[in-house]
């Protein structure tokens, strides 16, 4: 019959698709603007780019209502425990976008005061390059995250180096056209 190859039975497979669709279509952001990247994050939420098209128009100031933490800006050593606490207060499932080079690697601030990469503190799912990333680059990162939510597992989390425990196959075998907003 070939049924032994099925990873899920029909009912939960459909339910899983529904849950992933719901999560990707309304992933609310936690407000974590730290520096100039936050300006671009605000611009992405404003009228000319309008994150509401992706169900992300609300940036929650309370971490318990947020799904995606967009770390926008350089994270100083003093801010690091705060950031970790905000991340811990968020409810599962939760994702992190590291926006800009300062949050991703420290960028040009290679010194004692800045955390050299926010992935030392919280597990990061998507990195958006740029200094600061334009709203379009941020939306690209958000769409990458949405695709990651839709193609990943819904339950297995916290394994491996990547934040959500979701591993896309290999970086080079991914199809080039990733953005398909439906």
């Amino acid at each position, binding site marked *: 019959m070939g049924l032994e190859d099925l990873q899920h039975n029909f009912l939960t497979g459909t339910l899983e698709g529904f849950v992933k669709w719901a999560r990707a279509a309304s992933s609310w952001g936690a407000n974590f603007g730290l520096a100039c990247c936050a300006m671009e994050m605000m611009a992405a939420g404003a009228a000319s*780019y309008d994150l509401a098209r992706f169900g992300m128009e609300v940036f929650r100031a309370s971490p318990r209502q947020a799904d995606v933490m967009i770390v926008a800006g350089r994270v100083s050593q003093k801010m690091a425990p705060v950031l970790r606490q905000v991340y811990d207060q968020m409810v599962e499932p939760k994702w992190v976008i590291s926006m800009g080079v300062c949050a991703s690697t420290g960028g040009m601030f290679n010194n004692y005061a800045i955390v050299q990469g926010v992935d030392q503190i919280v597990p990061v799912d998507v990195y958006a390059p740029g200094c600061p990333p334009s709203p379009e680059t941020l939306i*690209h990162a958000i769409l*990458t995250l949405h695709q990651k939510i839709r193609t990943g597992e819904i339950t297995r989390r916290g394994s491996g180096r990547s934040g959500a425990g979701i591993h896309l196959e290999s970086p*080079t075998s991914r*199809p080039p056209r990733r953005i398909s907003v439906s």
Partner: protein
Amino acid sequence: MSFFKGFAVTGKLPFKPRVTVQYPEEKKPKAERFHGRHVLNRYEDGMEKCIGCELCAGVCPARCIYVRGADNPPHDPVSPGERYGFVYEINFLRCIHCDMCVEACPTEAITESKLFEFSFVNREDAIYTKAELLVDDEGNPRQLPWEDWKPGDERNTSAWVRATSPSGAASLEGRPLWSAELGFGVRAPERGQSDPSSADYPAENDLSLREMVPGQLRAVHVSDRRPERGRSGPAEGDG
């Protein structure tokens, strides 16, 4: 009656032009000297321009470039001259796109394109190797699996190198002082100060600024037509 004033504001809005750019389908026009991801250029005969001098790595404030030079093999040289860059890596999670490497490069080997649509799911992807940065045989940048730009965008290079009046001398305006590129020849200089209509090529799917606001541009004597494609070198008799 002030109660209804708010409704009046809301009621007017459907008749105003919509400002939202539907990003993944269409893009805003980019600035003339937009700093996107880097490309490593080649000469028209296919030789690499990079000579491995490591000036870009030295000037980089974010220390994101790693270059190593090596002697050219005498029978099969990679670049004209003695040396070539045999390792060239840029970490795009450190690069701040300041374009100081472009200014430092003595051979215009590294320039910036207007490609910006990329995001990474792991850090290894962010380190671009020389094979990924180098332009292909047509002179266009290679599209990597995690980049989402559309066909036509790769022709858009940043005009920083081809800036109006190199060295700041007004007498040099419109004269190309750089070497030819593979696939493009000597690109037209950016002559924004005297002739804005000779700006860089707009990509096929970009709405250029002159198409979005033609009325305002005509008021300042700017043509609302697109510049011609495939033009190389400054046109005779204008400027």
